[in-house]
């Protein structure tokens, strides 16, 4: 199964990639290619030019700077899962990266490509959103930053403008927070039917701040302000968790997606169940 005819160019700098991207309306950036190439083989994407950015070393590093952890757009899922910095500052992202696809896919798929693709059933968008991540973007008119909350716009749609490239993803240092990502995997594809990530700041047994994001069940990764406000200030007991589960189900109502195997109401119900599991997993309880 061949993709359609394409031209290919290996970019030697971010500036060159942006230049080519801006000059060619039908160009696509190619990093790991593990979303794009399958889409091209199915004719869901038919770019005329592929700009291969996978050799841009400056986009591969992961480092901690002050109270932020910065992940290059070309960091692979395998690299993120194995990174001691990610494991300590954003453990739910490390564990989510370790369950994306399979060994082979994790070796080549990149976080930047994953976020740009914005597949609702993928794991990293939900986790980056729960960590209140910031997406750094470069284009012909310079650089800008977009909060994850504003980045995911719709099904497979993001705030990226034509000619723009994701350079880095920055997460606040949450080393004091308890966090976890749990998902109900599709039994064949392992994609998330429902995925929930909870990031909780604790003072003793009281939750002082909570961020909750849901994916899989929804057309895009979404936060649940209702669940967050129920959990904040609570001791995360059963009644708080039941109220938070009800709130998450109500918050995602307008974003629900479904299919023959997993209809909307089932995914909605499971989002409540998986929110509770995410909190328990974060607390290790």
């Amino acid at each position: 199964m061949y993709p359609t005819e394409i031209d290919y160019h290996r970019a030697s700098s971010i500036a060159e990639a942006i230049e080519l991207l801006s000059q060619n309306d039908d160009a696509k950036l190619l990093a790991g290619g593990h979303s794009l190439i399958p889409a091209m083989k199915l004719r869901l994407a038919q770019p005329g030019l592929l700009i291969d950015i996978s050799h841009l070393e400056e986009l591969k590093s992961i480092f901690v700077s002050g109270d932020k952890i910065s992940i290059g757009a070309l960091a692979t899922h395998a690299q993120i899962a194995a990174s001691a910095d990610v494991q300590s500052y954003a453990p739910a992202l490390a564990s989510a990266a370790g369950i994306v696809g399979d060994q082979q896919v994790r070796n080549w798929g990149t976080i930047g490509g994953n976020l740009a693709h914005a597949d609702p059933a993928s794991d990293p968008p939900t986790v980056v959103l729960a960590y209140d991540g910031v997406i750094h973007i470069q284009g012909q008119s310079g650089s800008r930053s977009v909060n994850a909350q504003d980045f995911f716009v719709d099904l497979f749609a993001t705030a990226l403008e034509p000619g723009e490239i994701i350079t880095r993803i920055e997460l606040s240092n949450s080393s004091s927070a308890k966090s976890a990502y749990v998902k109900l995997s599709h039994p064949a594809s392992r994609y998330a039917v429902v995925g929930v990530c909870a990031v909780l700041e604790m003072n003793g047994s009281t939750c002082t701040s909570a961020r909750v994001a849901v994916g899989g069940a929804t057309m895009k990764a979404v936060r649940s302000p209702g669940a967050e406000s129920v959990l904040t200030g609570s001791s995360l007991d059963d009644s708080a968790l039941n109220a938070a589960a009800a709130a998450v189900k109500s918050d995602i109502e307008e974003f629900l997606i479904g299919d023959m195997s997993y209809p909307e109401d089932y995914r909605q119900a499971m989002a409540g169940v998986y929110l509770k599991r995410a909190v328990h997993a974060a607390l290790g309880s």
Partner: protein
Amino acid sequence: MQVKITVNGTLHERDVTPRTLLVHFLREDLALTGTKIGCDTSQCGSCTVHLDGKALKSCTMLAVQADGSDVQTIESLAQDGPLHPMQESFWEKHGLQCGYCTPGMIMASIALLENNPHPSDEEIRHGLEGNLCRCTGYQNIVAAVKNASEKMGG
């Protein structure tokens, strides 16, 4: 487009169209048909090779992306010599029936042991999630990888 790709230790310079997938380059340009095409949708893993030391589904990369890289296929393992311990283990533990998934399964299993020389049964199953076998039920594949890990000093 001209590409230079080292495959199993030999440098190959070829002219390929950019849409050529790496698996087609290996099978059709180089006649290395040990690497199989199964699902062709990045799921089954029968096309698994190593690219610069990392396991890859070669149906999910263009040959031009591999320009300048080093590829190892199933043919690199024995090359007229004794079988690789992983190949021996698949034989001894009967880790195959029809054999179609086996080249990919063996390449993925070798990569798995490189990252984790002492895997538990559960880690083997997680590590081989990207490789489908429709005959064995996986039991003997897990036993083969376990056996290979012992042979290889794990």
